[in-house]
């Protein structure tokens, strides 16, 4: 997929652990880990809303489109 998830970058910037974010968002850390590792097929707007609110960022800070990766596929 040509969408790159940069959740780990934002977590590092906010000095927050994955488990803490998962707890605050209200999903399991296993599911958040799937999202962080780019294995997820889709993300609910309410999950994105919660992540952005907690990390105080924009969706674009977490999701990025890579044309190179798209061309490779």
């Amino acid at each position, binding site marked *: 997929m040509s969408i790159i998830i940069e959740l780990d970058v934002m977590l590092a910037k906010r000095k927050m652990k994955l488990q803490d974010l998962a707890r605050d968002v209200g*999903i399991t850390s296993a*599911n*958040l880990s*799937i*999202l962080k590792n780019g*294995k*997820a*097929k*889709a*993300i*609910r707007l309410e*999950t994105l809303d919660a992540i952005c609110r907690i990390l105080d960022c924009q969706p674009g800070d977490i999701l990025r489109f890579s044309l190179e990766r798209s061309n490779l596929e």
Partner: protein
Amino acid sequence: MNKNNYNQLLLINKIMCVVSYLFLIALIFMITIPWLCPQSEIGKFLLSLQDFSAVMDRTHNNINDFMLSITPISRILGLIGSMFASLPLLLATIIMIKISGNYKKYQVFDIKNAILYSRLGYVYLVGALLLLPLYEIFFYAAVTINNPHGQRFIAFSIGIENITAVFFAIALVTIGQVMKLGYKISEEQQLTI
């Protein structure tokens, strides 16, 4: 999965396994015995279970006369014909055993089962369109091979049995494809965060 559902799956697996293995043994018995021991009562009985009335009518032969005049070459032709006829059932039984094995491993609406159901359909499709006519060709050849020149012939027919088998084969392939699609949808659902 709760324990009750798992127990039901185990029960289905056991029933499918027992039925499939019994069917497999019976099938091998029914293919080989009539051609290996054609003069025996059991051989005659097993052969009479197969629908040869049309063949016997067209060849003006009697099943008992045919059994008495049977030669090694007609035995081989008959055995090959029976194998062609039984091949789809044999493969289907093996596929059913695999499916029941997957049920035991909690894999119910799994991609493996979807592929196996599709294969089951393709096996019946090939059986109905190719193997059943081939079976008739070999059986006509087996019955008429000892006739004088000019009275030997081969023939095949495509009747309501073949059409019914094709219909069920297409239904099975469709079920397999729908299961594959269902699996993809459920996988996407699982990976939606």
